[in-house]
């Protein structure tokens, strides 16, 4: 939409490799399909036509961890699910990011008991926490954009 003309007018665009790569990473970040509880419903809503996450390059949720860059932990993680979560995270190719969506994934939420992991940061390193029970699609999208900002500022040395 007009970018061809712009490029034509400018002729040459100069940038750093870092910026170009980070731009590519943020604009085609594929999240993994990983719904665990009611937050997954909001995640689906964020993906659907009304909120339309594909505006931000998230065209589709990948059903395989090997094709995805972003893990949205949408819901509470039970202690029995935690090893599975970690295995899925380990199967994702680098670079990879994690969003803890909702209170349960962030800190256990209302489930302070023997069955639920008190925050997925016990299991996987989390980049962005999204508060809410469950967070509205706007909140999730805000979290994703916050993550995009973080990724744009990344240096090659800091993340292998």
């Amino acid at each position, binding site marked *: 939409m007009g970018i061809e003309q712009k490029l034509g007018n400018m002729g040459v665009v100069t940038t750093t490799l870092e910026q170009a790569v980070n731009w590519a990473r943020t604009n085609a970040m594929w999240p993994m399909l990983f719904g665990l509880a009611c937050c997954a419903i909001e995640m689906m809503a964020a993906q659907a036509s009304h909120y339309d996450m594909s505006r931000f390059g998230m065209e589709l949720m990948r059903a395989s961890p090997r094709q995805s860059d972003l893990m949205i932990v949408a819901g509470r993680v039970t202690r029995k699910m935690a090893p599975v979560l970690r295995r899925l995270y380990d199967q994702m190719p680098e670079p990879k990011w994690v969003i803890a969506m909702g209170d349960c994934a962030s800190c256990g939420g209302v489930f*302070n008991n*023997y*069955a639920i992991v008190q*925050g997925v940061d016990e*299991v996987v*390193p989390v980049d962005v926490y999204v508060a809410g029970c469950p967070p509205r699609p706007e909140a999730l999208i805000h979290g994703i954009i916050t993550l995009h900002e973080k990724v744009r500022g990344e240096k090659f040395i800091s993340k292998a």
Partner: protein
Amino acid sequence: MEAKLQSVVQRLQERFPLQVEEFRGEAHVFVQAEHLLHLLEFLKTQEGFEMLSTVTAVDYWPQQQPRFHVIYQLLSLQHNLRLQVRVPVNATEPVLPTITSIYANASWREREVWDMFGIRFQGHPDLRRILMPQDWQGHPLRKDYPLGYEEPQFTFNFEEINQRKPYAKE
């Protein structure tokens, strides 16, 4: 209590030493552990209670002694009757004989009672935890088990708890 159920309870009382309580038309039969197998055998073969609906337990600590009741809920399809058998279990030695030889479906139920309440079932073919991870410490549905797994973080104790909280290493 229904007349049919009344007569079943009557026949039980003639054969076994037991107490009976009635609650909303249902009979609760209290029996000691040593009579449990014979009682259930009798109920299944003679009285037509061919189905075991559930095995569960209640922890009455600290109000009651003995502390646990293990509950066997029986159903008779041919007579349309339900009967609850309760066995008091002591905290010092929480052991019961398994009933898997009579009702095979008791296997997983007894594993759950073991997992949640720590009541052992002697002679059970495979008494492992069924819900909690295998290396779990303690039995979560006991009344003296701590209610919360982790202390909540507030602003005033955030740093203190943060030091103890486990985090994933990248």
